[in-house]
């Protein structure tokens, strides 16, 4: 614990009067969602709050009693493989989608797991080739008495939360361009906001908002500026048309400034020479706004500002990872920050009100850049680590898997720490010729991942974002472990890819409890309380597609556990 004591004491005080880190401001969202956000008992959205902190103020289960945790119920989702969802709980109902479409969305009695309704969307039969990286659904969103979620065939669907009956559905994107919706929408006021995937298919990314009542499009902001728009000249020729920048992860929202934050994927194609110089001297050809974070006006979608973590990206370092919003004390100053454990291996701390970069330091072994120039907002690249068509760069760290991938981090305002499951993997990479065709991979790359240097392939890292120093680490034998959740009970929960679900002391990292859940975990855990009883839930079911691209390490992941699709809910 390296955070000054005063910092987290301040947060403790804040938590005592408010439901969450950013939930204290009233009337910024849909009323029903507002109300849901006010109760500590709920887990009303993917990251629990708009700030994606995955911190719960509940403290019935603590570091003192977590060793008594027992299974309350298990629920089979009926779809195996890549179950990545975080359930949400509103009142006494738990909502969760399965993978594979989703095949099903369920409403359960949060106490018992008894099914209240099941909804099965009709998904296009041929969607699979257009989904790059598994058949996941990361969750549903609650607002206005509705349950909203995206589908792998590019639609957004709204259900009646009570009955599971369809209220509306709308096409967000033509999945046949190589797009899917894998993350739950972000609801702000009367709008459901969503991006879509497709950075591997040469799509042009966009973030779109749909009217909560009708499903009609309210605004659309392309992540890649068109001709005449600022930033379009950061693309070579007309390469912007297939430039990627897909916003496939969850968004965040700051009600203070009415700003929505989304990360964007790698540019397309992976071969950077198609869209930039192909070298580390990329000049102005930075390919905005790919591998970036966009700050958008929630009402209009207008881009307020952006930072680009990886300019002229060439390693599959998506910039999509979730932005965690919190107020932390840096050099004695309470600072409204946005934090991101980026694929490119740097942990970014940005003033979320001004867009000013505060710090960027490696949180895993990084060698593609020797550092980050804060003043310029640019990485200091090592040209030897940039793949080209005529040059195979070897031992690039991190690999395409990223220092962290989609598996969510959590931030505990009481410890002041961010909990990140990291990947210590490196790669050899060479660019290649590539042809665009709608709906097929647009990569132009030959990559092979290898174990990173040192004694571990994965790690649970507790990082102090104010100082960028680790508080503690737990080494893990494999990469690609599940996301984290943290509570006011001084606990961190996460599941690993070996199928073990862990509870640890949030301050020290001491292992307090673990349970074999039978399949590798990717999803982040969550917690909720009903009738005065706190529960901890984790969805289990390892991925299949990403490990297939991980060589021998991927074989170990596949061999470690079978696929799965089970929700486990624990209580004291």
């Amino acid at each position: 614990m390296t955070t000054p004591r005063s910092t987290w004491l301040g947060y403790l005080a804040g938590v005592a009067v408010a439901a969450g880190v950013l939930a204290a401001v009233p009337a910024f969202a849909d009323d029903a969602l507002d109300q849901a956000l006010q109760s500590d008992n709920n887990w009303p959205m993917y990251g629990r709050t708009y700030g994606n902190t995955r911190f719960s103020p509940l403290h019935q289960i603590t570091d003192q009693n977590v060793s008594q945790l027992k299974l309350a119920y298990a629920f089979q989702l009926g779809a195996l493989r890549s179950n990545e969802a975080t359930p949400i709980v509103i009142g006494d109902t738990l909502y969760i989608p399965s993978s594979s479409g989703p095949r099903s969305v369920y409403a359960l009695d949060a106490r018992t797991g008894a099914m209240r309704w099941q909804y099965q969307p009709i998904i296009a039969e041929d969607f699979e080739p257009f989904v790059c990286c598994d058949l996941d659904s990361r969750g549903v969103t609650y607002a206005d008495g509705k349950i909203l979620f995206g589908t792998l065939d590019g639609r957004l669907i709204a259900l009646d939360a009570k009955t599971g009956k369809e209220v509306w559905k709308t096409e967000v994107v033509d999945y046949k361009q190589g797009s899917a919706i894998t993350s739950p929408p972000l609801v702000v006021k009367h709008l459901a906001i969503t991006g879509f995937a497709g950075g591997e298919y040469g799509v042009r990314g966009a973030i779109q908002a749909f009217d909560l009542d009708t499903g009609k499009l309210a605004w659309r902001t392309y992540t890649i500026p068109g001709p005449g728009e600022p930033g379009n000249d950061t693309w070579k020729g007309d390469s912007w048309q297939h430039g990627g920048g897909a916003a496939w992860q969850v968004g965040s929202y700051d009600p203070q400034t009415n700003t929505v934050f989304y990360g964007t994927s790698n540019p397309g194609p992976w071969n950077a020479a198609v869209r930039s110089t192909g070298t580390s001297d990329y000049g102005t050809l930075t390919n905005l706004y790919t591998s970036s974070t966009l700050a958008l006006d929630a009402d209009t979608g207008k881009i307020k500002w952006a930072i680009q973590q990886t300019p002229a990206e060439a390693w599959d370092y998506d910039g999509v990872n979730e932005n965690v919003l919190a107020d932390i004390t840096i050099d004695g100053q309470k600072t409204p920050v946005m934090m991101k454990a980026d694929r490119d291996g740097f942990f970014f701390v940005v003033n979320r009100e001004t867009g000013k970069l505060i710090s960027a330091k490696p949180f895993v072994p990084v060698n593609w850049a020797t550092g980050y120039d804060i003043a310029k907002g640019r990485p200091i690249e090592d040209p030897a680590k940039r793949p080209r068509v005529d040059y195979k760069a070897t031992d690039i760290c991190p690999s395409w898997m990223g220092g962290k991938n989609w598996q969510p981090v959590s931030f505990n305002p009481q410890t002041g720490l961010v909990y990140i499951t990291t990947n210590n993997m490196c790669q050899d990479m060479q660019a290649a010729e590539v042809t665009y065709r709608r709906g097929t991979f647009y990569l132009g790359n030959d990559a092979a991942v290898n174990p990173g240097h040192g004694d571990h392939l994965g790690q649970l890292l507790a990082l102090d974002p104010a100082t960028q120093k680790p508080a503690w680490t737990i080494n893990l034998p494999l990469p690609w472990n599940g996301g984290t959740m943290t509570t006011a009970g001084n606990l961190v929960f996460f599941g690993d890819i070996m199928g073990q679900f862990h509870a640890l002391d949030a301050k020290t990292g001491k292992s307090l409890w673990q349970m074999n859940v039978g399949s590798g975990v990717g999803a982040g855990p969550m917690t909720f309380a009903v009738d005065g009883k706190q529960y901890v839930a984790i969805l289990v079911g390892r991925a299949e597609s990403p490990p297939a691209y991980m060589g021998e390490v991927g074989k170990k992941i596949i061999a470690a556990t079978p696929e799965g699709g089970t929700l486990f809910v624990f209580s004291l």
Partner: protein
Amino acid sequence: VRWRLLWNRRWPWSVAACIFPALVALLSARPVAADEALPLRLCVDPDNLPFSSTSTTTPGFYVELGREIAGTLGRPFLPVWVPTYYTKRQIRLKLLVGQCDGFVGVPDDPSFMGPRLIFSKPIVQLGYALVAPPGMAINTPQDLRGRRVAVQFSTPPQDLLAGATDVQTVTVLSPEEAVQDLEQGKADAAFIWGASAGWLNSSTLHGAYRVVPFPGDHMQWSAAIAFPKDRSELRDQVDHALSGLGATIDRLTAKYDFPVPAPVSVPVNAEAANTVAPNASLPKAGAPDAGAPDARAPDAAAPNASAPNAGPPNAGAPNVGAPSAGAPNATAANSEARAAPAGGDDTQSQTTPAGFAPAPPTAQNIAAGHKLFNEICSHCHGPDAVQGEQRRNLRLLRQRYGDEMPQTFITTVTHGRVNKGMPNWSGIISTDEFSKILAFLTSVQEPGS
């Protein structure tokens, strides 16, 4: 002996033909050098017996013929070694830019590369043949009834026999494999590319088999020497030389054991042609217009009026050791009729290449396939085809599909298995590239139990 198996790789009309037309037009307009005193430079494959090779003892039919033609013209002969994997590309890159004067072993068909080329007289007839032990008396398709017959994948013979319920086919990838199956008793007869069969029979099997040419549409073609269109003077000189070289050609076809055409009766031809046509919906060749019937063939029974836009028969490519079937343009039409399940947007082609087989397992081909695989396929099937999920494991193709492996491969990559996540790659990956990827995959198959 290594045979070129894939026809389409050599003449990828449908894909490659449209790529550099402007460039070709530009280059082919180069002024012609006065070449009377210069060597006659003919483009030939360095490794494609019985047609050509760098061997001094058996340089191959084309090389020896070229030497004779040059001698007749009073010029030194200079072979220009060109791998003929991409015949059309090599014609563009070598012949049409003046690196050689003629390209030997091109289908004698005016539609082959359109007006850019002119052709010599036919230099040899080539086609498919029945191969069987002398005692078996196999001369017609009827004689194959009740037999196990080795046929090369995606060739007109395979199409022809596909409709025959009383013939058990044994699919092979190469003439060598067919002959091996004969030797090992896995097949009673083979129905393969005749020149290859003849050469194998004499060079490695001591003439143990009878090789009987099988005439008819799609089955026999004539080969010629191609020249740039502005070299008609040279073409005329070569034609004049050829008219005096009949005896030489006979000697050379005998030396290299080209099967002698003619023996099968006309009615069988007609039946064969009729049998092929209904099979046009097969994913490969056998399209009615696939084989440009050669009116000059003495025994050609089928009228060639049926092939107005005929892709010259791929199979007829004399410098293709063991070509297979039909012209890609025919195939495209066929596959539309197939109405394969839609794999994407409307622009996606669903063409299954004609005459598909893995590229010969040379280190070069395997390396090229490996590179392509890692660039394109590894995202789902693992770098180096190493990953842990059995249903994605392409090192198990042989165990899973056995002899059907190439066919399953090409059908899958050109149509996708969209309901299982496999895209349709036609139009993105060329047939040549597919064949190299398959050569790589073939090289990494896990042995069965």
